[in-house]
């Protein structure tokens, strides 16, 4: 067997997919298969039915044709096996070729193996491999191992198909018969019409069955053969075998090319070495490209030419390539570049106007950019300190936390208040209040006490009136500091008089 000549794509398939490959093989070789099929089976069909009629047993033709199926199976298998590995034979060749195949297995299939659901797979094994008897059963065990279920399903599927075609023919006939010619019922039809001319009907049934068998039996054989091919591809890696053979051919061709190149590479330095001692004088320094490349590489260099030809024989460097690429179906028409202008003067004027507009636009854009930069000039810098405005140095000193409180707290606060520095005035008041409270409660000075802390401390003051005043001052400060809500002049006056601001005063 020459695997290189196979004409189907080999790859490991699921058995179900292999069945489809069988159908494709049959479709591709339909003429060869069916010409051989009818050349052999049609005379047999006529003979069997004639025998049946002569013996007075009209059903004999039908049964005999069914029984002889394993004999007929040899024909499609012969055609397909030759077509897959070579070319499809003509029907004469097929009929003559049957002598090459042993009849023993066919006799077995016709007798005790007639009801065997694995016939489709057994057929190629026995006829194509022709192994001796001892080996055959071992071979059969290996071959059928994973696919015996699929083979049986194939048999039942084909049986079903045959039945479908047989019934379809009858039903189609029934559909085409005009209503008034039909029997009243199926019962009537079989009781009268069929019984009156039973031989005719039987022969007709045999003919329809024969046609259905002719359609499906080659499919059965082809599918079995495809299963067999697929199983052997699995077992023996035929697809890898093919790929390796192709690779081997390519590598051997490549080896020749490499050999030639190697020879060239060896010969070249030798020749130059031979020439070197003769020119003892230093080489003249090449000054122009012409001198460097004195001889173009491809002119008259015989060895290079042969090597190049050899290389181009490699399918990867030369030869014909089929490439697929996407091309516009309708090439877009190139738009004419320079259209003559209908009114040159008008066009020029328009051009000048638009050019002027363009410059104007540029100027406006630059001006806008400059204005933007000027307007935002300060914002991008790090924020400078809060403007100190007119707050005097001494006043600021009194507001800052670390500075000691002024002796006249009420006066300082009042001065700040009247100078519209309300926030600072309240801050000073708050600080003074806090300091007085701490002194009253004999608390250590703490920097991290919050307003809420002082509100709590106020509860510890014995005198409730004083406590009320501390709370009032803290609250006032909180409102001012966090909400920007300031008391009116009367309110501030009330807070500034009496205890904590005037240290000695009572509440």
């Amino acid at each position, binding site marked *: 067997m020459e695997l290189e000549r196979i004409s189907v*794509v080999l790859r490991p398939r699921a058995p179900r*997919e292999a069945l*489809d490959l069988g159908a494709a*093989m049959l479709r591709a070789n339909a003429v060869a298969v069916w010409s051989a099929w009818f050349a052999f089976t049609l005379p047999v069909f006529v003979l069997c039915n004639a025998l049946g009629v002569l013996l007075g047993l009209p059903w004999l033709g039908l049964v005999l044709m069914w029984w002889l199926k394993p004999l007929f199976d040899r024909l499609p298998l012969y055609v397909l096996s030759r077509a897959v590995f070579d070319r499809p034979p003509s029907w004469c060749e097929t009929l003559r070729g049957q002598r090459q195949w042993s009849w023993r297995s066919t006799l077995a299939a016709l007798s005790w193996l007639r009801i065997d659901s694995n016939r489709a797979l057994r057929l190629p094994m026995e006829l194509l491999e022709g192994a001796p008897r001892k080996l055959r059963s071992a071979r059969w065990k290996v071959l059928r191992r994973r696919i015996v279920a699929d083979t049986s399903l194939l048999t039942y599927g084909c049986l079903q198909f045959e039945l479908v075609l047989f019934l379809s023919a009858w039903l189609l006939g029934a559909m085409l018969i005009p209503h008034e010619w039909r029997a009243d019922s199926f019962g009537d039809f079989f009781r009268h019409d069929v019984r009156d001319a039973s031989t005719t009907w039987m022969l007709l049934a045999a003919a329809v069955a024969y046609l259905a068998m002719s359609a499906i039996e080659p499919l059965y054989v082809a599918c079995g053969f495809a299963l067999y091919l697929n199983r052997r591809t699995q077992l023996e*890696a035929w697809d890898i075998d093919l790929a390796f053979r192709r690779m081997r051919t390519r590598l051997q061709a490549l080896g020749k090319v490499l050999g030639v190149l190697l020879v060239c590479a060896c010969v070249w330095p030798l020749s130059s070495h031979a020439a070197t001692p003769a020119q003892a004088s230093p080489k003249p320094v090449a000054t122009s490209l012409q001198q460097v490349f004195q001889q173009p590489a491809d002119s008259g260099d015989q060895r290079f030419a042969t090597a190049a030809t050899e290389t181009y024989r490699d399918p*990867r460097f030369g030869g014909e390539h089929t490439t*697929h690429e996407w091309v516009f179906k309708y090439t877009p028409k190139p738009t004419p570049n320079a259209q003559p202008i209908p009114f040159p003067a008008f066009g020029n004027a328009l051009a000048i106007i638009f050019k002027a507009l363009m410059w104007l636009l540029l100027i406006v854009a630059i001006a806008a950019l400059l204005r933007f930069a000027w307007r935002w000039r300060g914002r991008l810098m790090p924020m400078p300190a809060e403007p100190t405005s007119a707050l005097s140095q001494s006043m600021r000193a009194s507001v800052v936390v670390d500075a000691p409180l002024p002796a006249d707290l009420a006066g300082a606060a009042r001065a700040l208040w009247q100078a519209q520095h309300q926030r600072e005035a309240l801050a000073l008041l708050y600080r003074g209040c806090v300091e007085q409270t701490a002194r009253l409660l004999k608390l250590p000075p703490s920097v991290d006490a919050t307003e809420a802390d002082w509100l709590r401390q106020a509860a510890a003051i014995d005198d409730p009136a004083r406590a009320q005043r501390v709370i009032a001052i803290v609250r006032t400060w909180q409102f001012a500091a966090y909400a920007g809500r300031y008391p009116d002049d009367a309110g501030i006056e009330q807070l500034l008089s009496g205890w904590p601001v005037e240290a000695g005063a009572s509440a």
Partner: protein
Amino acid sequence: MLDTVREIETPEGIALRLRAAGALPRAQAWMVDMLLRMGVFIMAMIPLSLFGMGGNGLAMLLLFALTWVYSVVCEVWLGGQTLGKRALGLRVVNADGTPVTWLPSVVRNLLRAVDVLPGVYGVGLVSTLIDPYARRLGDIVAGTMVIHAVELPAGQQVPTFAAVPLPVVLAADEQAALVEFAERSAQLTPQRQEELANLLTPLTGRNDTAAVRQLIGHANWLLGRP
């Protein structure tokens, strides 16, 4: 070369391979569907028979749904697979490989009325046997086809050998063949492995077991193993 694959090239230049499913797997899937639907109908008839005429009406509705709606709903919502097709690993797709949508599905299932014609799917069978992609008339009209959805049986793991760099640059299909050999070598007999490896003596420069080992080493190298 003969094959059952329909190759479709997308506008991006990607080749999709649709493995058309033939008459036999499709008939088997149909049988599974048929038995399922018959089972459902019979099970539903048992309670419905208690309701007299109303039950009959409901049974008719059920029969209609099982005949006409079942396939369409399954194909659109279950990824192109009725339950029978799912059991057999088949799938309905548009002829360009995209998932089947409402209109093609409805068309192909309505045209069952034609495919079923002499009463036992004779037209459908003949059409499936003749068409190269095994489409019945409904498929041809709707622009759909039935394909094998399950992936091919995968090879086994490539055995881990020390990687051997390839001495020459190989084409993509040749590299694939080497890796395939390494994957499937466990399924082959040792004699067959050596026979195959001896084919590549020009590449390995070795024979028999050493050649097999070196080829598997090459495959390891191709797979980027250390």
